[in-house]
């Protein structure tokens, strides 16, 4: 099961959330297994039926005030139960001071407490986004990702079929390169597939005969992007006389990545076909479809209607 280490959360968010570890020496080895954030108000009141113990526990004004107001014996009892669970970490918002007994129990159980000056809702929002991103399912594919007129287009195909050359021409024509050769993909909430490049090879390409080139240095910062939502997959392959390629554009084909379906086109390559132009038109056509205009379908409907009208007037 995927999990985020408390240390990673702290390292990544300590600046934006102005987090301060107020239990020094407590190791940040806990694992966060869910992007949900838990406010343990009901747990402090003794209700543990749905206690999400593997989440980050956030103490806002309500929780801290409740703990402070509880009679000492009662508070001991609820904290004892609370800290018997394996909690990854606790965050106290609005720079409130932690109740002494809470600190004692946290140190005893080895659970880190952070403090942040942020308001609870704000902190919950940012923390959720970070954890969701860190827990997002990931994979990598062999291909080239470009932003073509705003449509994240994943070029695929066998080694040597000309993906990088097509990408280079597209960059020359003003499109943007995201990743070449190895495209990292993550699925973010809302079934969105984000594509990006590994840091080591980011904005670089290998072109046979030229070697490794740096696209950002050669073409400028406008020629690259760090990440882009993938909306379409295009497979380039050598023309195969045995295969029937799509002619009308009425049948839609799909390709699945991390459980998300993407429209998929196969573009056969033969001399005389300008592949970069075809990819650009495919991307524009995809944009039209997303705007509700399906050319092939509408064309066919018009054709059928015209034939029916003609038959009626005959």
């Amino acid at each position, binding site marked *: 099961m995927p999990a985020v280490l408390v240390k990673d959360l702290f390292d990544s968010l300590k600046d934006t959330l102005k987090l301060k570890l107020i239990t020094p020496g407590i190791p940040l080895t806990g694992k966060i297994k869910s992007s949900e954030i838990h406010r343990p108000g009901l747990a402090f009141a003794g209700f543990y039926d749905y206690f999400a113990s593997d989440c980050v526990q956030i103490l806002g004004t309500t929780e801290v005030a409740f703990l402070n107001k509880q009679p000492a014996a009662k508070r001991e009892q609820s904290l004892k139960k609370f800290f018997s669970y394996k909690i990854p970490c606790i965050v106290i918002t609005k720079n409130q001071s932690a109740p002494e007994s809470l600190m004692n129990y946290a140190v005893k159980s080895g659970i880190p407490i952070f403090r942040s000056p942020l308001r609870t809702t704000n902190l919950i929002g940012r923390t959720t986004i970070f954890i969701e991103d860190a827990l997002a399912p990931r994979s990598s594919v062999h291909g080239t990702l470009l932003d073509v007129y705003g449509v994240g287009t994943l070029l695929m195909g066998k080694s*040597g079929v000309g993906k990088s050359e097509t990408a280079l021409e597209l960059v020359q024509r003003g499109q943007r390169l995201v990743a070449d*050769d190895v495209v990292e993909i993550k699925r973010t909430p809302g079934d969105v597939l984000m594509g990006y490049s590994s840091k*080591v090879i980011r904005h670089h390409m290998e072109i046979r005969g030229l070697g490794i080139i740096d696209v950002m240095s050669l073409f400028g910062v406008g020629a690259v992007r760090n990440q882009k939502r993938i909306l379409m997959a295009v497979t380039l392959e050598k023309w195969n006389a045995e295969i029937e390629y799509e002619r009308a554009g009425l049948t839609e084909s799909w390709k699945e990545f991390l459980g998300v379906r993407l429209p998929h086109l196969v573009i056969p390559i033969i001399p005389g076909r300008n592949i970069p132009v075809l990819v650009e038109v495919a991307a524009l056509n995809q944009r039209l479809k997303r705007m509700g205009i399906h050319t092939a379908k509408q064309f066919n409907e018009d054709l059928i209607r015209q034939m029916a009208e003609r038959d009626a007037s005959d």
Partner: protein
Amino acid sequence: MKNPLPESPSEESVEKKVVIKNKLGLHARPAALFVQTTSKFNCEITVRKGKQKVNGKSIMGLMMLAAGQGTTLSLEAVGPEAKRAVQEVEKLVNNNFGE
């Protein structure tokens, strides 16, 4: 007249682990030699380092692995010439890419 035997597409599938031993690891020059070797053979070859998996005919992919000295790589090849491709890569790696 003798009927020629029907060609049987022999699909080989090979798996092999290699350890990178040269001092600088799989940098640009060894990666180039690696893909020059794999590209000669009719097969699909993937190279795995831990959870990362890349195409063995792609130089950028191999360099992305940043496989330093001592790294174990798993080679997985499928296709008519899979066996020979893996053998040649193994030879190359064990020769420290001539470095």
